[in-house]
């Protein structure tokens, strides 16, 4: 390992553990030392600096391969006839990791900064920062781990920090409920993830990604089990990335402080699911990928439809997040790997921005979250407004924004998928969501910032947020523009993210891949594999596939289609809400059943409440009753039976056995009455009898 590798790995370890150190410091000394929040924020910025250094060194300057640091965590030896049990874990840095490090630390440090303002008066201010530090640590752990087990470990840790942060205002029942719900729903997904790990480990005896891919390539795990493993691991992503059908926790998670929503529930943690899928991508079979694509598409559509009816500003953004995560998953599922990951990066920036922006609004409106009571804030909060507009354009996929680049390439991929598979459901859903996204985002902007203020009292007091809150907005708004990614605003392929994050080559047996993911035979390939490609985890090389060719074909068609739909969506929003050409209320009335259905989030909460939750609680009550009455009843019954038997035997004892005894006593007494006369109480009489006895004995035993 060269010195620079070691340096980068050490820096990565520092990046990982600095926030943990901050957490420890804050938890134990938070009350004794003042202003530790500054320390924590400083730590995060330091981590950001390190991460940037790592990324730049790795991707732009040195073009290093994967850096890996593995050590043995558990070693239970090997025994004859068994493979033994060894767990190696460690960290690794490849391009995805390097980019994610920057994304996480950047958003996290901006959120730290933003929270100075937003959380200023909070009663558990220091605790809040401590948890943020802990979250950053866990999230960086996910990013850095080179194995599926450590990923699971940190996966759970982000779950717990999410739980703690959602429940930050735990005095509110809804907040603590939401935290609990988030954790438990995530756990459901995690169980799948864990079973997936068990399958992988049991078959391959390693948890290292490199080992897993090697093992699968060697055919040690294949067939339905491999598909199952892929889908089960994806279950983890379904939980964490709030995909259908486990998406229900994310909207509730909005009970947490808004900066937390920005950091955890928009930019980083929820994207971990996407990251996970990207990590295990080479081992996903064609079937598994199709499942993933469908889940993503359904989620994207479902969430977008709900988003257009919500009135809570954060809820809209939450559903928007779910929808965008669906996009990413969809992208990965259809094979647009780089695009999906690219969207993760750009989404992190603009969605964090949206949440921070909404935080800024909420802060200005004194914790009012209902959009129906806002309006006209544009004049009062210009910075927030313009940042918000940029974010919205970006999420809607309007050119010159980062969102356009990434989203467009996902949609291109989806279209290519449709062309290759002949299955157009996924692209149709994907393009439908473009329209919906544009519509609900601009609906939000119009309701919040345009028009006349609806709550004058609050409006009067509203003012632009302080600099600590606007600076992050400005930074994120800048990052939502195309220039940071590529100089050609219409060519996502030219962005450095897409170039450095290359779709890894699948390791699954050829029969289980989608045919079009396989490389085009060399003689027909237009471009041979370039030698200076950037190696990734797994056995990945850049090569031309049928899929790549389809992508080329669909590119411009897809771009045109998505642009049209996005503009239509924005137009519709303006028509309905700005210019009021169509009465929104009448529209609602005309499609009331649909509207109600959407407003109630497709009744998922009710469905789960009535089935899973009620079922579990019911079963648990039933079991408790069973335990208390049947099993314990048997025990107590046995005791009662024993008592009964003992009482029976007691009666027997009393009447039969004792009867006999008493009879013999009575008989003896009768005898005694006769013999009693002998007992005169006079010694002399006794002597006579004794002598008599002696004589009798004597004569009885005499032998002569």
């Amino acid at each position, binding site marked *: 390992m060269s010195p620079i590798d070691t340096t980068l790995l050490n820096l990565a370890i520092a990046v990982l553990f600095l926030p943990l150190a901050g957490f420890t410091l804050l938890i134990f000394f938070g009350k004794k030392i003042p202003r530790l929040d500054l320390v924590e924020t400083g730590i995060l910025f330091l981590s950001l600096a390190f991460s940037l250094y790592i990324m730049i060194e790795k991707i732009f300057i040195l073009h290093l391969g994967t850096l890996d640091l593995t050590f043995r965590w558990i070693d239970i030896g090997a025994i004859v006839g068994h493979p033994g049990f060894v767990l190696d874990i460690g960290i690794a840095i490849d391009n995805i990791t390097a980019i994610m490090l920057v994304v996480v630390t950047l958003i996290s440090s901006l959120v730290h900064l933003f929270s100075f303002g937003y959380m200023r008066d909070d009663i558990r201010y220091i605790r809040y920062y401590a948890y943020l530090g802990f979250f950053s640590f866990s999230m960086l752990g996910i990013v850095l781990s080179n194995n599926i087990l450590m990923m699971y470990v940190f996966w759970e840790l982000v779950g717990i920090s999410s739980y703690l942060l959602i429940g930050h205002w735990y005095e509110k029942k809804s907040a603590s409920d939401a935290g609990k719900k988030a954790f438990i729903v995530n756990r459901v997904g995690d169980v799948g993830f864990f079973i997936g790990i068990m399958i992988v480990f049991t078959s391959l005896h390693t948890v290292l990604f490199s080992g897993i891919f090697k093992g699968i390539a060697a055919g040690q795990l294949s067939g339905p089990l491999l598909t199952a493993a892929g889908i089960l691991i994806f279950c983890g992503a379904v939980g964490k990335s709030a995909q259908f059908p486990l998406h229900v926790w994310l909207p509730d998670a909005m009970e947490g402080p808004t900066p937390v929503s920005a950091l955890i529930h928009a930019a980083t943690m929820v994207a971990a699911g996407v990251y996970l899928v990207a990590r295990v991508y080479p081992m996903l079979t064609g079937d598994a990928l199709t499942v993933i694509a469908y889940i993503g598409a359904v989620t994207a559509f479902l969430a977008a439809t709900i988003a257009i009816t919500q009135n809570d500003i954060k809820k809209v953004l939450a559903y928007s997040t779910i929808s965008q995560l669906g996009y990413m998953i969809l992208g990965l599922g259809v094979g647009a790997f780089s695009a999906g990951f690219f969207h993760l990066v750009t989404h992190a920036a603009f969605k964090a921005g949206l949440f921070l922006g909404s935080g800024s609004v909420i802060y200005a409106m004194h914790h009012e979250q209902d959009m129906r009571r806002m309006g006209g804030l544009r004049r009062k909060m210009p910075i927030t407004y313009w940042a918000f507009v940029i974010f919205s354009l970006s999420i809607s996929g309007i050119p010159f924004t980062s969102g356009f680049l990434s989203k467009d390439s996902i949609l291109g991929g989806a279209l290519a998928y449709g062309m290759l598979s002949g299955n157009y459901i996924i692209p149709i859903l994907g393009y439908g969501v473009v329209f919906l996204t544009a519509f609900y985002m601009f609906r939000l902007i119009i309701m919040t910032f345009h028009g006349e203020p609806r709550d004058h009292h609050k409006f009067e007091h509203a003012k632009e947020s302080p600099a600590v809150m606007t600076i992050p907005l400005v930074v994120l708004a800048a990052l939502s523009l195309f220039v940071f990614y590529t100089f050609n605003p219409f060519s996502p392929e030219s962005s450095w993210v897409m170039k450095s994050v290359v779709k890894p080559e699948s390791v699954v047996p050829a029969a289980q891949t989608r045919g079009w993911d396989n490389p085009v035979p060399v003689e027909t390939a237009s471009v041979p594999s370039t030698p200076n490609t950037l190696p990734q985890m797994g056995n990945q090389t850049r090569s031309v596939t049928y899929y790549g060719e389809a992508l080329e074909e669909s590119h411009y068609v897809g771009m045109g289609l998505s642009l049209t739909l996005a503009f239509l969506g924005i137009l519709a929003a303006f028509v309905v809400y700005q210019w009021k050409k169509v009465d929104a209320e009448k529209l609602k009335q005309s499609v009331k059943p649909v509207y109600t259905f959407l407003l109630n989030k497709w009744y998922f909460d009710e469905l789960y409440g009535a089935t899973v939750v009620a079922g579990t609680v019911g079963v648990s009550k039933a079991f408790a009753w069973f335990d208390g009455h049947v099993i314990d009843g048997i025990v107590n019954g046995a005791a009662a039976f024993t008592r009964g038997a003992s009482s029976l035997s007691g009666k027997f004892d009393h009447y039969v056995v004792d009867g006999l005894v008493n009879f013999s006593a009575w008989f003896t007494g009768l005898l005694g009455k006769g013999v009693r006369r002998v007992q005169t*109480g006079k010694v002399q009489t006794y*002597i006579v009898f004794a002598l008599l006895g002696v004589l009798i004995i004597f004569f009885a035993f005499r032998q002569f």
Partner: protein
Amino acid sequence: MNLHVGLTDFLVVSAILFSLGIYGVVTRKNAIMVLMGIELILNSANLNFVAFTRFGLMNLTGQVIALFVIILAAAEAAILLAIVLNIHQQLDTVNVDEVDKLKN
């Protein structure tokens, strides 16, 4: 020295004394008389011991035991007489048949 009178003769005397002592103990009512019977019995036993010693069936131990018996008899007599005196003072009788307070 060839004796006509031998061990058996002494033992017979002893047996007669013993029987008389028993008879006295059994038939007498007066506690003191009972005591006298006991003394007879003890003496008969002593006579046996000494006789056995004389005729070589026991060594000198027999005489020592006789000595102890005499001592015990003395002690016994002293105690018994004290009790009798006491009973006499308490119950105004020395009739063993009448000393039956514990019985009723």
